[in-house]
Protein backbone atom coordinates (compact mmCIF):
# COMPACT_ATOMS: atom_id res chain seq x y z
CA UNK A 1 0.00 0.00 0.00
CA UNK A 2 1.05 3.63 -0.25
CA UNK A 3 2.69 5.60 -3.01
CA UNK A 4 5.13 3.66 -5.09
CA UNK A 5 8.22 5.20 -6.64
CA UNK A 6 8.04 5.82 -10.36
CA UNK A 7 10.46 3.03 -11.14
CA UNK A 8 8.97 0.09 -9.38
CA UNK A 9 11.79 -1.78 -7.67
CA UNK A 10 10.81 -4.52 -5.35
CA UNK A 11 13.28 -5.09 -2.57
CA UNK A 12 13.07 -8.44 -0.90
CA UNK A 13 15.31 -11.03 0.64
CA UNK A 14 16.41 -14.22 -1.06
CA UNK A 15 15.35 -16.50 -2.71
CA UNK A 16 14.91 -14.51 -5.90
CA UNK A 17 14.09 -17.37 -8.21
CA UNK A 18 10.39 -17.97 -8.35
CA UNK A 19 8.80 -21.33 -8.88
CA UNK A 20 6.51 -21.65 -11.84
CA UNK A 21 3.57 -22.38 -9.58
CA UNK A 22 1.44 -19.63 -8.17
CA UNK A 23 -0.72 -19.85 -5.09
CA UNK A 24 -3.75 -19.45 -7.29
CA UNK A 25 -2.73 -22.40 -9.46
CA UNK A 26 -2.25 -24.69 -6.46
CA UNK A 27 -5.53 -23.66 -4.93
CA UNK A 28 -7.36 -24.15 -8.21
CA UNK A 29 -6.11 -27.70 -8.45
CA UNK A 30 -7.21 -28.40 -4.89
CA UNK A 31 -10.68 -27.10 -5.74
CA UNK A 32 -10.83 -29.30 -8.84
CA UNK A 33 -9.81 -32.34 -6.86
CA UNK A 34 -12.49 -31.52 -4.28
CA UNK A 35 -15.27 -31.38 -6.86
CA UNK A 36 -15.75 -35.18 -7.18
CA UNK A 37 -15.90 -35.41 -3.39
CA UNK A 38 -18.54 -32.66 -3.28
CA UNK A 39 -20.47 -34.36 -6.08
CA UNK A 40 -20.50 -37.59 -4.10
CA UNK A 41 -21.71 -35.69 -1.03
CA UNK A 42 -24.59 -34.27 -3.07
CA UNK A 43 -25.31 -37.76 -4.45
CA UNK A 44 -25.55 -39.03 -0.85
CA UNK A 45 -27.70 -36.31 0.63
CA UNK A 46 -29.33 -34.52 -2.28
CA UNK A 47 -30.54 -30.95 -2.35
CA UNK A 48 -29.69 -30.13 1.26
CA UNK A 49 -26.04 -31.01 0.76
CA UNK A 50 -25.88 -28.96 -2.44
CA UNK A 51 -27.39 -25.92 -0.77
CA UNK A 52 -25.19 -26.33 2.29
CA UNK A 53 -22.06 -26.38 0.09
CA UNK A 54 -23.26 -23.28 -1.75
CA UNK A 55 -24.28 -21.25 1.30
CA UNK A 56 -21.14 -21.98 3.28
CA UNK A 57 -18.85 -21.26 0.33
CA UNK A 58 -20.66 -18.04 -0.56
CA UNK A 59 -20.50 -16.82 3.04
CA UNK A 60 -16.76 -17.56 3.07
CA UNK A 61 -16.28 -15.68 -0.20
CA UNK A 62 -18.28 -12.64 0.93
CA UNK A 63 -16.37 -12.46 4.22
CA UNK A 64 -13.10 -12.79 2.36
CA UNK A 65 -14.13 -10.02 -0.01
CA UNK A 66 -15.06 -7.74 2.88
CA UNK A 67 -11.73 -8.20 4.65
CA UNK A 68 -9.63 -8.02 1.50
CA UNK A 69 -11.34 -4.74 0.62
CA UNK A 70 -10.73 -3.38 4.10
CA UNK A 71 -7.04 -3.76 3.36
CA UNK A 72 -4.27 -5.01 5.55
CA UNK A 73 -4.70 -8.47 4.13
CA UNK A 74 -2.52 -10.52 1.93
CA UNK A 75 -4.03 -12.37 -1.00
CA UNK A 76 -7.15 -11.58 -2.91
CA UNK A 77 -10.55 -13.02 -3.50
CA UNK A 78 -9.50 -14.63 -6.78
CA UNK A 79 -6.99 -17.02 -5.26
CA UNK A 80 -9.56 -19.78 -4.64
CA UNK A 81 -8.44 -20.29 -1.05
CA UNK A 82 -11.76 -19.09 0.39
CA UNK A 83 -13.56 -21.58 -1.87
CA UNK A 84 -11.47 -24.42 -0.46
CA UNK A 85 -12.24 -23.29 3.06
CA UNK A 86 -15.96 -23.12 2.27
CA UNK A 87 -16.12 -26.53 0.58
CA UNK A 88 -14.12 -28.29 3.30
CA UNK A 89 -16.19 -26.65 6.01
CA UNK A 90 -19.45 -27.72 4.37
CA UNK A 91 -18.13 -31.27 3.88
CA UNK A 92 -17.25 -31.49 7.57
CA UNK A 93 -20.71 -30.33 8.72
CA UNK A 94 -23.79 -32.57 8.83
CA UNK A 95 -25.72 -32.36 5.55
CA UNK A 96 -28.88 -31.19 7.29
CA UNK A 97 -27.06 -28.50 9.27
CA UNK A 98 -29.27 -25.40 9.38
CA UNK A 99 -28.14 -23.09 6.61
CA UNK A 100 -27.96 -20.04 8.83
CA UNK A 101 -25.57 -21.84 11.14
CA UNK A 102 -23.52 -22.84 8.10
CA UNK A 103 -23.30 -19.18 7.12
CA UNK A 104 -22.15 -18.28 10.65
CA UNK A 105 -19.50 -21.01 10.43
CA UNK A 106 -18.29 -19.62 7.11
CA UNK A 107 -18.04 -16.06 8.42
CA UNK A 108 -16.20 -17.15 11.56
CA UNK A 109 -13.87 -19.39 9.54
CA UNK A 110 -12.63 -16.54 7.38
CA UNK A 111 -12.85 -13.70 9.90
CA UNK A 112 -11.43 -15.46 12.94
CA UNK A 113 -9.40 -18.16 11.26
CA UNK A 114 -7.79 -16.16 8.50
CA UNK A 115 -8.37 -12.40 8.38
CA UNK A 116 -7.41 -11.96 12.02
CA UNK A 117 -3.92 -13.28 11.34
CA UNK A 118 -3.39 -11.20 8.21
CA UNK A 119 -4.86 -13.27 5.40
CA UNK A 120 -3.70 -16.20 3.34
CA UNK A 121 -0.35 -17.63 4.38
CA UNK A 122 -0.40 -16.02 7.82
CA UNK A 123 -3.05 -18.10 9.48
CA UNK A 124 -1.91 -20.31 12.33
CA UNK A 125 -4.93 -22.62 12.28
CA UNK A 126 -6.85 -24.18 9.44
CA UNK A 127 -9.68 -21.68 8.82
CA UNK A 128 -12.29 -24.34 7.99
CA UNK A 129 -11.63 -26.07 11.29
CA UNK A 130 -11.81 -22.79 13.21
CA UNK A 131 -15.27 -22.26 11.72
CA UNK A 132 -16.28 -25.79 12.63
CA UNK A 133 -14.87 -25.51 16.15
CA UNK A 134 -16.91 -22.34 16.68
CA UNK A 135 -20.21 -23.88 15.64
CA UNK A 136 -19.35 -27.02 17.58
CA UNK A 137 -19.05 -24.88 20.70
CA UNK A 138 -22.02 -22.68 19.88
CA UNK A 139 -24.51 -25.27 18.60
CA UNK A 140 -23.39 -28.61 20.06
CA UNK A 141 -26.71 -30.31 19.41
CA UNK A 142 -27.21 -29.24 15.81
CA UNK A 143 -23.73 -30.37 14.83
CA UNK A 144 -24.30 -33.82 16.31
CA UNK A 145 -27.55 -34.33 14.36
CA UNK A 146 -26.86 -36.38 11.25
CA UNK A 147 -29.41 -37.85 8.90
CA UNK A 148 -29.19 -41.13 6.98
CA UNK A 149 -27.74 -40.98 3.48
CA UNK A 150 -29.46 -42.12 0.27
CA UNK A 151 -32.91 -41.14 1.51
CA UNK A 152 -35.59 -41.71 -1.14
CA UNK A 153 -36.59 -38.41 -2.67
CA UNK A 154 -33.48 -36.61 -1.57
CA UNK A 155 -33.22 -34.79 -4.88
CA UNK A 156 -36.71 -33.30 -4.61
CA UNK A 157 -36.93 -32.18 -1.01
CA UNK A 158 -34.75 -30.72 1.70
CA UNK A 159 -33.88 -32.26 5.03
CA UNK A 160 -36.26 -30.23 7.24
CA UNK A 161 -33.52 -28.94 9.53
CA UNK A 162 -31.71 -27.25 6.62
CA UNK A 163 -34.50 -24.75 6.18
CA UNK A 164 -34.50 -23.48 9.75
CA UNK A 165 -35.21 -19.77 10.08
CA UNK A 166 -32.17 -17.70 11.10
CA UNK A 167 -31.45 -17.66 14.87
CA UNK A 168 -34.03 -20.37 15.50
CA UNK A 169 -33.57 -23.92 16.74
CA UNK A 170 -33.19 -26.54 14.04
CA UNK A 171 -36.46 -28.11 12.96
CA UNK A 172 -36.67 -31.59 14.42
CA UNK A 173 -35.99 -34.41 11.96
CA UNK A 174 -37.50 -37.13 14.17
CA UNK A 175 -40.98 -36.86 12.62
CA UNK A 176 -39.56 -36.64 9.14
CA UNK A 177 -37.53 -39.80 9.76
CA UNK A 178 -40.55 -41.58 11.21
CA UNK A 179 -42.57 -40.82 8.07
CA UNK A 180 -39.91 -42.67 6.12
CA UNK A 181 -39.80 -45.64 8.50
CA UNK A 182 -36.47 -44.74 10.09
CA UNK A 183 -36.03 -44.70 13.84
CA UNK A 184 -34.31 -41.77 15.50
CA UNK A 185 -31.12 -43.79 15.86
CA UNK A 186 -30.67 -44.02 12.08
CA UNK A 187 -29.25 -40.52 12.21
CA UNK A 188 -26.33 -41.36 14.48
CA UNK A 189 -22.91 -41.49 12.85
CA UNK A 190 -21.04 -44.81 13.02
CA UNK A 191 -18.66 -43.29 15.57
CA UNK A 192 -21.49 -42.09 17.80
CA UNK A 193 -23.17 -45.49 17.51
CA UNK A 194 -19.94 -47.18 18.56
CA UNK A 195 -19.30 -44.77 21.41
CA UNK A 196 -22.78 -44.57 22.90
CA UNK A 197 -24.48 -47.79 21.77
CA UNK A 198 -21.53 -50.13 21.30
CA UNK A 199 -22.54 -50.96 17.73
CA UNK A 200 -19.63 -51.42 15.36
CA UNK A 201 -20.02 -50.72 11.64
CA UNK A 202 -18.28 -52.82 9.00
CA UNK A 203 -15.03 -51.20 7.82
CA UNK A 204 -15.60 -52.21 4.18
CA UNK A 205 -18.96 -50.47 4.14
CA UNK A 206 -17.37 -47.37 5.66
CA UNK A 207 -14.68 -47.36 2.97
CA UNK A 208 -17.17 -46.90 0.15
CA UNK A 209 -20.00 -45.15 2.06
CA UNK A 210 -22.34 -46.80 -0.44
CA UNK A 211 -24.18 -49.51 1.44
CA UNK A 212 -27.36 -48.91 3.36
CA UNK A 213 -28.36 -45.61 4.85
CA UNK A 214 -25.29 -44.87 6.93
CA UNK A 215 -24.95 -41.34 8.29
CA UNK A 216 -21.46 -40.75 6.97
CA UNK A 217 -19.54 -38.22 4.93
CA UNK A 218 -18.25 -38.78 1.40
CA UNK A 219 -16.56 -42.07 0.63
CA UNK A 220 -13.05 -42.31 2.11
CA UNK A 221 -11.77 -44.17 -0.91
CA UNK A 222 -12.85 -41.34 -3.20
CA UNK A 223 -11.13 -38.80 -0.98
CA UNK A 224 -7.97 -40.92 -1.01
CA UNK A 225 -8.08 -41.10 -4.82
CA UNK A 226 -8.52 -37.33 -5.15
CA UNK A 227 -5.73 -36.82 -2.63
CA UNK A 228 -3.53 -39.23 -4.56
CA UNK A 229 -4.00 -37.09 -7.66
CA UNK A 230 -2.89 -34.00 -5.74
CA UNK A 231 0.06 -35.82 -4.20
CA UNK A 232 1.04 -37.20 -7.61
CA UNK A 233 1.00 -33.69 -9.09
CA UNK A 234 2.86 -32.56 -5.96
CA UNK A 235 0.19 -30.14 -4.83
CA UNK A 236 0.27 -31.69 -1.40
CA UNK A 237 2.93 -33.55 0.47
CA UNK A 238 2.17 -37.26 0.77
CA UNK A 239 4.10 -37.50 4.03
CA UNK A 240 1.43 -35.78 6.14
CA UNK A 241 -1.57 -38.02 5.26
CA UNK A 242 0.72 -41.07 5.39
CA UNK A 243 1.96 -40.11 8.85
CA UNK A 244 -1.53 -39.36 10.17
CA UNK A 245 -3.09 -42.57 8.89
CA UNK A 246 -0.07 -44.62 9.89
CA UNK A 247 0.04 -43.25 13.40
CA UNK A 248 -3.74 -43.45 13.92
CA UNK A 249 -3.78 -47.00 12.54
CA UNK A 250 -0.82 -48.06 14.65
CA UNK A 251 -2.23 -46.60 17.87
CA UNK A 252 -5.65 -48.14 17.22
CA UNK A 253 -4.05 -51.48 16.33
CA UNK A 254 -1.99 -51.54 19.52
CA UNK A 255 -5.02 -50.82 21.67
CA UNK A 256 -7.04 -53.39 19.73
CA UNK A 257 -4.31 -55.96 20.36
CA UNK A 258 -4.39 -55.16 24.05
CA UNK A 259 -8.14 -55.44 24.45
CA UNK A 260 -10.23 -56.35 21.43
CA UNK A 261 -13.51 -56.13 23.31
CA UNK A 262 -13.22 -52.59 24.48
CA UNK A 263 -11.51 -51.11 21.44
CA UNK A 264 -12.76 -51.41 17.84
CA UNK A 265 -10.54 -52.73 15.06
CA UNK A 266 -8.11 -50.23 13.52
CA UNK A 267 -9.83 -50.18 10.12
CA UNK A 268 -13.03 -48.93 11.72
CA UNK A 269 -10.98 -46.14 13.30
CA UNK A 270 -9.35 -45.21 9.99
CA UNK A 271 -12.42 -45.12 7.79
CA UNK A 272 -14.98 -43.65 10.16
CA UNK A 273 -15.66 -40.01 10.86
CA UNK A 274 -13.68 -37.28 9.20
CA UNK A 275 -10.23 -38.81 9.62
CA UNK A 276 -9.54 -39.37 5.93
CA UNK A 277 -10.93 -35.98 4.90
CA UNK A 278 -8.95 -34.28 7.65
CA UNK A 279 -5.76 -36.16 6.87
CA UNK A 280 -5.86 -35.53 3.13
CA UNK A 281 -7.31 -32.04 2.86
CA UNK A 282 -7.24 -30.23 6.20
CA UNK A 283 -3.98 -31.22 7.85
CA UNK A 284 -2.09 -30.65 4.60
CA UNK A 285 -2.94 -26.93 4.47
CA UNK A 286 0.39 -25.41 3.47
CA UNK A 287 0.26 -22.42 5.79
CA UNK A 288 -0.45 -24.41 8.92
CA UNK A 289 1.70 -27.53 8.51
CA UNK A 290 5.48 -27.81 8.92
CA UNK A 291 7.73 -27.36 5.89
CA UNK A 292 10.52 -29.67 6.98
CA UNK A 293 10.09 -33.31 5.86
CA UNK A 294 11.00 -34.60 9.31
CA UNK A 295 8.56 -32.13 10.83
CA UNK A 296 5.77 -33.43 8.60
CA UNK A 297 6.20 -36.92 10.02
CA UNK A 298 6.15 -35.60 13.58
CA UNK A 299 3.13 -33.43 12.83
CA UNK A 300 1.19 -36.25 11.19
CA UNK A 301 2.04 -38.70 13.94
CA UNK A 302 0.83 -36.21 16.54
CA UNK A 303 -2.52 -35.77 14.75
CA UNK A 304 -3.06 -39.52 14.38
CA UNK A 305 -2.25 -40.21 18.01
CA UNK A 306 -4.41 -37.35 19.33
CA UNK A 307 -7.36 -38.37 17.14
CA UNK A 308 -7.43 -41.90 18.51
CA UNK A 309 -6.93 -40.73 22.09
CA UNK A 310 -9.75 -38.18 21.84
CA UNK A 311 -12.07 -40.72 20.23
CA UNK A 312 -11.40 -43.34 22.90
CA UNK A 313 -11.03 -41.38 26.07
CA UNK A 314 -13.01 -38.14 25.77
CA UNK A 315 -16.71 -37.35 25.89
CA UNK A 316 -16.73 -36.59 22.17
CA UNK A 317 -17.21 -39.25 19.51
CA UNK A 318 -15.02 -37.44 16.96
CA UNK A 319 -11.59 -35.93 17.58
CA UNK A 320 -10.03 -35.18 14.19
CA UNK A 321 -10.85 -31.48 14.37
CA UNK A 322 -9.26 -30.83 17.75
CA UNK A 323 -6.30 -33.06 16.90
CA UNK A 324 -5.51 -31.04 13.78
CA UNK A 325 -6.02 -27.72 15.54
CA UNK A 326 -3.67 -28.75 18.36
CA UNK A 327 -1.06 -29.95 15.88
CA UNK A 328 -1.42 -26.66 13.97
CA UNK A 329 -0.60 -24.85 17.18
CA UNK A 330 2.46 -27.05 17.63
CA UNK A 331 3.66 -26.51 14.05
CA UNK A 332 6.13 -23.65 14.74
CA UNK A 333 7.70 -25.68 17.52
CA UNK A 334 7.91 -28.80 15.36
CA UNK A 335 9.56 -26.76 12.60
CA UNK A 336 12.08 -25.37 15.04
CA UNK A 337 13.21 -28.69 16.41
CA UNK A 338 13.32 -30.40 13.04
CA UNK A 339 15.45 -27.78 11.28
CA UNK A 340 17.84 -29.62 8.99
CA UNK A 341 21.52 -29.15 9.78
CA UNK A 342 23.29 -26.98 7.19
CA UNK A 343 25.94 -28.69 5.10
CA UNK A 344 29.26 -28.77 6.85
CA UNK A 345 27.82 -28.55 10.33
CA UNK A 346 27.64 -31.81 12.14
CA UNK A 347 25.00 -32.69 14.65
CA UNK A 348 27.60 -32.41 17.41
CA UNK A 349 28.57 -28.85 16.64
CA UNK A 350 24.90 -28.00 16.53
CA UNK A 351 24.40 -29.27 20.07
CA UNK A 352 27.47 -27.43 21.28
CA UNK A 353 26.17 -24.18 19.91
CA UNK A 354 22.82 -24.53 21.52
CA UNK A 355 24.44 -24.91 24.89
CA UNK A 356 26.20 -21.62 24.48
CA UNK A 357 22.98 -19.86 23.41
CA UNK A 358 22.03 -16.42 24.66
CA UNK A 359 22.89 -16.14 28.28
CA UNK A 360 22.20 -13.19 30.46
CA UNK A 361 24.56 -12.79 33.40
CA UNK A 362 23.00 -11.59 36.61
CA UNK A 363 23.23 -7.87 36.53
CA UNK A 364 22.12 -5.45 39.18
CA UNK A 365 19.99 -3.70 36.59
CA UNK A 366 17.79 -6.78 36.32
CA UNK A 367 17.13 -7.03 40.00
CA UNK A 368 15.67 -3.62 40.51
CA UNK A 369 14.35 -1.33 37.83
CA UNK A 370 13.20 1.30 40.28
CA UNK A 371 15.87 3.67 39.15
CA UNK A 372 14.62 5.46 36.07
CA UNK A 373 18.07 5.69 34.64
CA UNK A 374 18.62 1.94 34.78
CA UNK A 375 19.45 0.58 31.36
CA UNK A 376 19.05 -2.91 30.06
CA UNK A 377 22.58 -4.30 30.04
CA UNK A 378 23.95 -5.41 26.72
CA UNK A 379 24.03 -9.07 25.98
CA UNK A 380 27.47 -10.28 26.97
CA UNK A 381 27.80 -13.15 24.57
CA UNK A 382 26.83 -13.17 20.96
CA UNK A 383 25.05 -16.34 19.93
CA UNK A 384 27.78 -17.03 17.38
CA UNK A 385 30.81 -15.73 19.13
CA UNK A 386 33.83 -15.63 16.81
CA UNK A 387 36.67 -17.68 18.17
CA UNK A 388 39.24 -14.96 17.65
CA UNK A 389 38.03 -11.45 18.32
CA UNK A 390 38.71 -9.21 15.35
CA UNK A 391 41.77 -7.05 15.77
CA UNK A 392 41.10 -3.37 15.99
Amino acid sequence: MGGRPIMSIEIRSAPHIKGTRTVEQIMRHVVWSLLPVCAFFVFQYGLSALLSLLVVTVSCLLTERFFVRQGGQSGDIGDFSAIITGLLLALSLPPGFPLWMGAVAGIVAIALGKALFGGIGFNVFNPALIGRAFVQAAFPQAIATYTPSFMPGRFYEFIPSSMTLPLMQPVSVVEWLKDRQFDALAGATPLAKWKFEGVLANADDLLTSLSGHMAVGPSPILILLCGAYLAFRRFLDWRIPAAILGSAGLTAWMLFALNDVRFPNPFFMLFSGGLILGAVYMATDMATSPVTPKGMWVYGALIGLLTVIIRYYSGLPEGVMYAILLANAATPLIEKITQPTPFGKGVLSNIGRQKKGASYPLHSGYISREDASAETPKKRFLPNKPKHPPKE
Partner: protein
Amino acid sequence: MTSAAIPPQTTSAVAMIRTLGLIAALCGLIIVSAYQGTYDAVQENKRIAVERAVFKVIPTAKSIVEYAAAPIGTIVKVGAGGTAPNAVPEGAVKFYAGYDASGKLSGIAAEGVAKGYSDNVRILYAYDPATAMISGFGVVAMRETPGIGDKILVDKGFLASFPLQASLSADGAILSREIVTVKHGSKANPWEIDAITGATITSRAVGRAINDSAKRLLPRIVPRISELKEQP
Protein backbone atom coordinates in the same frame (compact mmCIF):
# COMPACT_ATOMS: atom_id res chain seq x y z
CA MET B 1 -0.11 14.34 37.17
CA THR B 2 3.54 14.81 37.97
CA SER B 3 5.43 12.89 40.56
CA ALA B 4 6.34 16.22 42.16
CA ALA B 5 3.02 16.09 43.99
CA ILE B 6 4.56 13.69 46.47
CA PRO B 7 7.57 15.39 48.00
CA PRO B 8 10.58 13.10 48.26
CA GLN B 9 10.86 12.93 51.99
CA THR B 10 11.46 10.21 54.49
CA THR B 11 8.84 9.48 57.09
CA SER B 12 9.59 8.19 60.52
CA ALA B 13 8.41 4.70 61.36
CA VAL B 14 6.20 6.02 64.14
CA ALA B 15 4.36 8.29 61.73
CA MET B 16 3.83 5.42 59.31
CA ILE B 17 2.44 3.12 61.97
CA ARG B 18 0.26 5.91 63.30
CA THR B 19 -1.20 6.66 59.90
CA LEU B 20 -1.74 3.02 59.04
CA GLY B 21 -3.37 2.43 62.41
CA LEU B 22 -5.63 5.40 61.95
CA ILE B 23 -6.69 4.30 58.49
CA ALA B 24 -7.19 0.72 59.61
CA ALA B 25 -9.40 1.92 62.45
CA LEU B 26 -11.41 4.07 60.06
CA CYS B 27 -11.84 1.16 57.65
CA GLY B 28 -12.80 -1.16 60.47
CA LEU B 29 -15.47 1.28 61.51
CA ILE B 30 -16.87 1.43 57.99
CA ILE B 31 -16.96 -2.37 57.69
CA VAL B 32 -18.62 -2.90 61.06
CA SER B 33 -21.31 -0.35 60.36
CA ALA B 34 -21.97 -1.89 56.95
CA TYR B 35 -22.19 -5.34 58.54
CA GLN B 36 -24.56 -4.17 61.22
CA GLY B 37 -26.64 -2.19 58.75
CA THR B 38 -27.15 -5.09 56.36
CA TYR B 39 -27.27 -8.01 58.82
CA ASP B 40 -31.05 -8.28 59.11
CA ALA B 41 -31.66 -7.92 55.41
CA VAL B 42 -29.02 -10.57 54.58
CA GLN B 43 -30.44 -13.08 57.08
CA GLU B 44 -33.95 -12.45 55.81
CA ASN B 45 -32.78 -12.97 52.24
CA LYS B 46 -31.11 -16.25 53.13
CA ARG B 47 -34.20 -17.49 54.91
CA ILE B 48 -36.42 -16.58 51.96
CA ALA B 49 -34.04 -18.32 49.55
CA VAL B 50 -34.14 -21.55 51.58
CA GLU B 51 -37.91 -21.37 51.96
CA ARG B 52 -38.41 -20.81 48.29
CA ALA B 53 -36.24 -23.78 47.41
CA VAL B 54 -38.04 -26.04 49.88
CA PHE B 55 -41.51 -24.90 48.82
CA LYS B 56 -40.53 -25.67 45.23
CA VAL B 57 -39.68 -29.31 45.96
CA ILE B 58 -42.52 -29.79 48.47
CA PRO B 59 -45.36 -27.94 46.75
CA THR B 60 -47.90 -28.69 49.51
CA ALA B 61 -45.77 -27.21 52.29
CA LYS B 62 -46.83 -23.92 53.79
CA SER B 63 -44.15 -23.57 56.47
CA ILE B 64 -40.78 -25.16 57.10
CA VAL B 65 -38.73 -26.13 60.13
CA GLU B 66 -35.03 -26.87 60.03
CA TYR B 67 -33.76 -29.99 61.80
CA ALA B 68 -30.49 -31.82 62.21
CA ALA B 69 -30.34 -35.62 62.49
CA ALA B 70 -27.45 -36.71 64.70
CA PRO B 71 -25.72 -40.06 64.06
CA ILE B 72 -26.77 -41.45 67.45
CA GLY B 73 -30.40 -41.22 66.45
CA THR B 74 -31.66 -38.00 67.90
CA ILE B 75 -33.29 -35.26 65.89
CA VAL B 76 -32.84 -31.71 67.05
CA LYS B 77 -34.56 -28.59 65.89
CA VAL B 78 -32.27 -25.89 64.53
CA GLY B 79 -32.91 -22.15 64.62
CA ALA B 80 -35.63 -20.30 66.53
CA GLY B 81 -36.79 -22.28 69.56
CA GLY B 82 -34.12 -24.97 69.10
CA THR B 83 -30.38 -25.46 68.93
CA ALA B 84 -28.33 -22.59 67.60
CA PRO B 85 -27.06 -23.35 64.06
CA ASN B 86 -23.46 -23.46 65.29
CA ALA B 87 -24.24 -25.85 68.15
CA VAL B 88 -25.46 -28.67 65.89
CA PRO B 89 -23.77 -31.96 66.95
CA GLU B 90 -20.81 -33.24 64.97
CA GLY B 91 -21.72 -35.36 61.94
CA ALA B 92 -25.38 -34.39 62.00
CA VAL B 93 -27.26 -34.13 58.69
CA LYS B 94 -29.39 -31.05 58.25
CA PHE B 95 -32.79 -31.31 56.64
CA TYR B 96 -36.00 -29.37 56.39
CA ALA B 97 -39.46 -30.58 57.27
CA GLY B 98 -42.30 -28.95 55.36
CA TYR B 99 -45.72 -28.68 56.99
CA ASP B 100 -49.01 -27.98 55.27
CA ALA B 101 -51.62 -25.43 56.33
CA SER B 102 -53.05 -27.69 59.05
CA GLY B 103 -49.60 -28.34 60.56
CA LYS B 104 -49.24 -31.90 59.24
CA LEU B 105 -45.91 -33.11 57.82
CA SER B 106 -46.07 -32.91 54.03
CA GLY B 107 -42.51 -33.77 53.14
CA ILE B 108 -38.83 -33.73 53.99
CA ALA B 109 -36.24 -31.83 52.00
CA ALA B 110 -32.49 -32.26 52.19
CA GLU B 111 -29.46 -31.14 50.27
CA GLY B 112 -27.20 -33.39 48.23
CA VAL B 113 -23.92 -32.63 46.46
CA ALA B 114 -22.07 -34.49 43.73
CA LYS B 115 -19.42 -33.62 41.20
CA GLY B 116 -20.94 -32.68 37.88
CA TYR B 117 -19.34 -31.85 34.56
CA SER B 118 -17.77 -28.53 35.50
CA ASP B 119 -18.34 -28.11 39.22
CA ASN B 120 -20.29 -29.53 42.12
CA VAL B 121 -24.01 -29.86 41.48
CA ARG B 122 -25.89 -28.95 44.65
CA ILE B 123 -29.49 -30.09 44.73
CA LEU B 124 -32.36 -30.11 47.17
CA TYR B 125 -34.54 -33.21 46.96
CA ALA B 126 -37.86 -33.96 48.60
CA TYR B 127 -38.63 -37.21 50.42
CA ASP B 128 -42.23 -38.19 50.98
CA PRO B 129 -42.43 -40.27 54.20
CA ALA B 130 -45.97 -41.51 53.44
CA THR B 131 -44.92 -43.40 50.29
CA ALA B 132 -41.18 -43.71 51.00
CA MET B 133 -40.47 -42.09 47.68
CA ILE B 134 -38.22 -39.25 46.54
CA SER B 135 -40.79 -37.05 44.91
CA GLY B 136 -38.60 -34.54 43.12
CA PHE B 137 -35.58 -32.30 43.23
CA GLY B 138 -34.50 -28.72 42.62
CA VAL B 139 -31.09 -27.26 41.88
CA VAL B 140 -29.47 -25.07 44.51
CA ALA B 141 -26.31 -24.29 42.58
CA MET B 142 -24.60 -25.66 39.47
CA ARG B 143 -22.27 -24.51 36.74
CA GLU B 144 -23.14 -27.09 34.11
CA THR B 145 -22.92 -26.26 30.42
CA PRO B 146 -25.96 -24.20 29.48
CA GLY B 147 -28.11 -26.01 26.94
CA ILE B 148 -26.67 -29.43 27.85
CA GLY B 149 -26.17 -30.01 31.56
CA ASP B 150 -28.97 -27.72 32.65
CA LYS B 151 -31.47 -29.92 30.81
CA ILE B 152 -31.86 -31.83 34.10
CA LEU B 153 -34.38 -29.15 35.04
CA VAL B 154 -36.54 -29.43 31.92
CA ASP B 155 -35.95 -32.79 30.20
CA LYS B 156 -39.28 -34.64 30.34
CA GLY B 157 -37.83 -38.15 30.20
CA PHE B 158 -35.45 -37.36 33.00
CA LEU B 159 -38.07 -35.77 35.25
CA ALA B 160 -40.42 -38.69 34.57
CA SER B 161 -38.00 -40.87 36.59
CA PHE B 162 -39.49 -39.28 39.72
CA PRO B 163 -40.89 -40.32 42.16
CA LEU B 164 -38.01 -42.66 42.98
CA GLN B 165 -38.26 -45.55 45.36
CA ALA B 166 -36.18 -44.93 48.49
CA SER B 167 -37.39 -47.56 50.95
CA LEU B 168 -35.13 -48.89 53.67
CA SER B 169 -33.90 -52.45 54.02
CA ALA B 170 -35.47 -54.76 56.61
CA ASP B 171 -33.07 -53.75 59.40
CA GLY B 172 -33.49 -50.09 58.52
CA ALA B 173 -29.75 -49.43 58.30
CA ILE B 174 -29.37 -48.97 54.55
CA LEU B 175 -31.47 -48.25 51.49
CA SER B 176 -33.03 -51.45 50.15
CA ARG B 177 -31.90 -50.37 46.69
CA GLU B 178 -29.26 -47.77 45.93
CA ILE B 179 -30.51 -45.00 43.67
CA VAL B 180 -28.65 -45.17 40.36
CA THR B 181 -28.68 -43.32 37.07
CA VAL B 182 -29.00 -45.67 34.13
CA LYS B 183 -28.40 -45.20 30.41
CA HIS B 184 -31.13 -43.30 28.58
CA GLY B 185 -34.12 -45.48 27.81
CA SER B 186 -33.14 -48.40 30.01
CA LYS B 187 -34.95 -47.43 33.23
CA ALA B 188 -36.83 -50.51 34.38
CA ASN B 189 -37.06 -50.17 38.16
CA PRO B 190 -38.51 -47.50 40.44
CA TRP B 191 -35.09 -46.75 41.99
CA GLU B 192 -33.45 -45.91 38.65
CA ILE B 193 -33.06 -42.50 37.04
CA ASP B 194 -33.26 -42.28 33.25
CA ALA B 195 -30.18 -40.36 32.05
CA ILE B 196 -30.36 -37.63 29.42
CA THR B 197 -28.50 -38.42 26.20
CA GLY B 198 -25.60 -36.01 25.90
CA ALA B 199 -25.86 -34.93 29.54
CA THR B 200 -25.00 -38.23 31.14
CA ILE B 201 -22.47 -36.78 33.56
CA THR B 202 -24.89 -34.24 35.00
CA SER B 203 -27.67 -36.86 35.17
CA ARG B 204 -25.36 -39.17 37.07
CA ALA B 205 -24.39 -36.34 39.41
CA VAL B 206 -28.05 -35.87 40.35
CA GLY B 207 -28.42 -39.59 41.04
CA ARG B 208 -25.26 -39.72 43.11
CA ALA B 209 -26.18 -36.60 45.07
CA ILE B 210 -29.58 -38.02 46.00
CA ASN B 211 -28.18 -41.47 46.77
CA ASP B 212 -25.30 -40.26 48.93
CA SER B 213 -27.48 -37.94 50.95
CA ALA B 214 -30.46 -40.30 51.28
CA LYS B 215 -28.17 -43.13 52.37
CA ARG B 216 -27.00 -41.02 55.28
CA LEU B 217 -30.22 -39.27 56.17
CA LEU B 218 -33.08 -41.73 55.75
CA PRO B 219 -31.90 -44.46 58.16
CA ARG B 220 -31.70 -41.76 60.84
CA ILE B 221 -35.08 -40.14 60.39
CA VAL B 222 -37.40 -42.87 59.12
CA PRO B 223 -37.58 -44.73 62.50
CA ARG B 224 -38.33 -41.43 64.24
CA ILE B 225 -40.66 -39.97 61.66
CA SER B 226 -43.47 -39.87 64.23
CA GLU B 227 -41.55 -37.18 66.13
CA LEU B 228 -41.87 -34.96 63.09
CA LYS B 229 -45.50 -35.65 62.21
CA GLU B 230 -46.87 -32.50 63.81
CA GLN B 231 -45.53 -29.00 63.43
CA PRO B 232 -43.76 -28.08 66.69
